[in-house]
């Protein structure tokens, strides 16, 4: 190990930064486990706590209900006196670390979670398939085939990303309406089968780093473009393709505006809308919102964790060259 000190510094930097970057997620989890009376506290406290009271010689968890002058009315939440309300002096109450799981059980009841999950997964699945297929084909056309007009097409594609969606929304809506697609998942899914400028551009950049000699060699062996795409380019770009898959999955999973605008029935709505509905106009169920937010984030975290093996596999040029 020649670079030992450098590696140690690198590792320490990793740890510090990792804590910083996971803070939003940690805070989310912590809030999702807090009791209502603790959620609104001004201090940023990452440890969930609950009020406890000494009743008949043992500490029991209580829920503050209301103040009556100098006395605090609390409801006992566990033990033989569960459910009874008692008035106590506020100084008798103490805070101890406590995990409040009811935010999760209540959160699942707040909206039809599993139906929304099913709707979301259907859309995500189709969007991922469509994007990976269409983007890799189009990127091959733009990066690996020499033809007149490909630069023009590339710029036309880039240009479509430069016009803010707010002004094309109404004509686009009318297009989908003309096709009879309103209140179906088609406006959310079909465009994915027509490629996505962002990912086509990304794949084009990756494909252009593949040595032309690979493709020439295959072509001399008599392979068609389809064969080159399938047997040379796709395996070499597994990493980039899995990036496309994961990113499009995340985008479709978290998309709020698309489903909101094009779907018209509560039955068809997705998790992102369910989550947004936990936020009220004047007040919100914080704990529940954060609990559901954790539930929505967790699958993405797991997906990312599993997929990253492919991400970093790289295009593995060395192997092919050797």
């Amino acid at each position, binding site marked *: 190990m020649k670079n030992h000190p450098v590696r140690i510094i690198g590792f320490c930097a990793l740890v510090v930064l990792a804590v910083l970057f996971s803070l939003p997620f940690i805070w989310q989890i912590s809030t999702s486990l807090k009791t209502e009376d603790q959620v609104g506290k001004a201090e940023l406290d990452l440890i969930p706590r609950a009020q406890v009271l000494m009743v008949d010689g043992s500490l029991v968890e209580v829920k503050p209900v209301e103040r009556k002058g100098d006395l605090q009315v609390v409801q006992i939440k566990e033990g033989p006196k569960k459910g009874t309300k008692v008035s106590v002096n506020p100084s008798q109450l103490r805070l101890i670390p406590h995990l409040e799981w009811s935010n999760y059980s209540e959160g699942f009841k707040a909206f039809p979670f599993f139906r929304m999950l099913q709707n979301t997964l259907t859309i995500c699945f189709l969007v991922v398939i469509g994007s990976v297929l269409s983007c890799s084909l*189009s990127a091959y056309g733009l990066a690996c085939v020499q033809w007149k007009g490909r630069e023009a097409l590339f710029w036309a594609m880039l240009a479509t990303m430069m016009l803010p969606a707010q*002004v094309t929304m109404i004509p686009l809506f009318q297009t989908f309406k003309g096709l009879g697609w309103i209140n179906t998942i088609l406006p959310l899914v079909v465009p994915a089968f027509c490629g996505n400028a962002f990912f086509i551009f990304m794949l084009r950049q990756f494909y252009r780093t593949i*040595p032309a000699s690979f493709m020439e060699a295959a072509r001399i062996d008599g392979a068609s473009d389809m064969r080159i*795409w399938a047997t040379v380019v796709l395996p070499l770009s597994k990493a980039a393709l899995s990036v496309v898959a994961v990113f499009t999955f995340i985008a479709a999973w*978290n998309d709020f505006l698309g489903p909101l605008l094009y779907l018209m029935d509560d039955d068809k709505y997705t998790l992102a809308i369910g989550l947004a509905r936990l936020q009220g106009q004047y007040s919100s169920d914080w704990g529940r*919102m954060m609990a559901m937010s954790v539930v929505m984030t967790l699958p993405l975290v797991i997906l990312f964790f599993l997929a990253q093996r492919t*991400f970093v596999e790289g295009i593995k040029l060395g192997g092919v060259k050797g």
Partner: protein
Amino acid sequence: MKSRTWTGLAFCSPLIIGLLCFTVLPVVASFWFSLCNYPILEPPRFVGVANYVELARDDRFWHSVRNTFLYVAGAIPLGMVVGLGLALLLNQRVAGIKVFRTLFFLPTVVPLVANSVLWVRLLNPQQGLVNTFLRFLHLPEAWMPGWLSDEHWALPGLVLMSLWGAGGGAVLYVAALQDVPAELFEAAELDGAGPSKRFRHITIPMISPVLLFTGVMGLVGGFQEFARAFVMTKGGPWDSTLFYCLHLFNSAFTEFRLGYASAMAWVLFGIILFATVIVMRSSMKHVQYEQ
């Protein structure tokens, strides 16, 4: 050569069909709207370039242009630098690297609402973690940034928040870094090149296609920044986070001036296109593709 054109067209057919079906019409329509008075619920009425003329005289429009340029100038380069730094750290062979990669990516998957609520608290000038950290460094109280509540600090606050999303770019850089052949480094080391020289002459050129991609996409996305300000600041305090697209959205959907908003959209289109062409042109010399 003719058959190559057909092959290219065939491979690009999903893209071409998409452009024709879902893009051409809305784009042409929005250009037409920009020449019209269009209150959404009444049919558009042609008024020539009146919307563009009014734009030139709209103080708030220029203010939003300024805000957006400042944001792009801050967030995009910083985001790329941070992303690249993370990628270099994440490219090490250390224990638990998979977990680290996942942790850095976390902020990009947390839903915007949850993220915004957290950041409002992190950036709170009094109790927020960011200023608590600055106080820990013994910075004088007078220097404490007023983040989202002071008009001078709101925009930097949003830039800071945007850096938390750098993990997304880092994933792409890591993927590109993995492709840099180890032989190149070994050869350079034998020639006596130090780490910084190797970084400048091998790493950067080898991943330049991906850098170009993230840079251009950063520009395109940065100029259209909208969601954070919409959820967190509504453009305030004192219009200091009134981004171009937020102003555009308000014009279209709270003031019912879709014609005016469309004119804004086309001006923005021009700005982004111009910036992109410059970046792509100037990158030609530097970006290395395999030949």
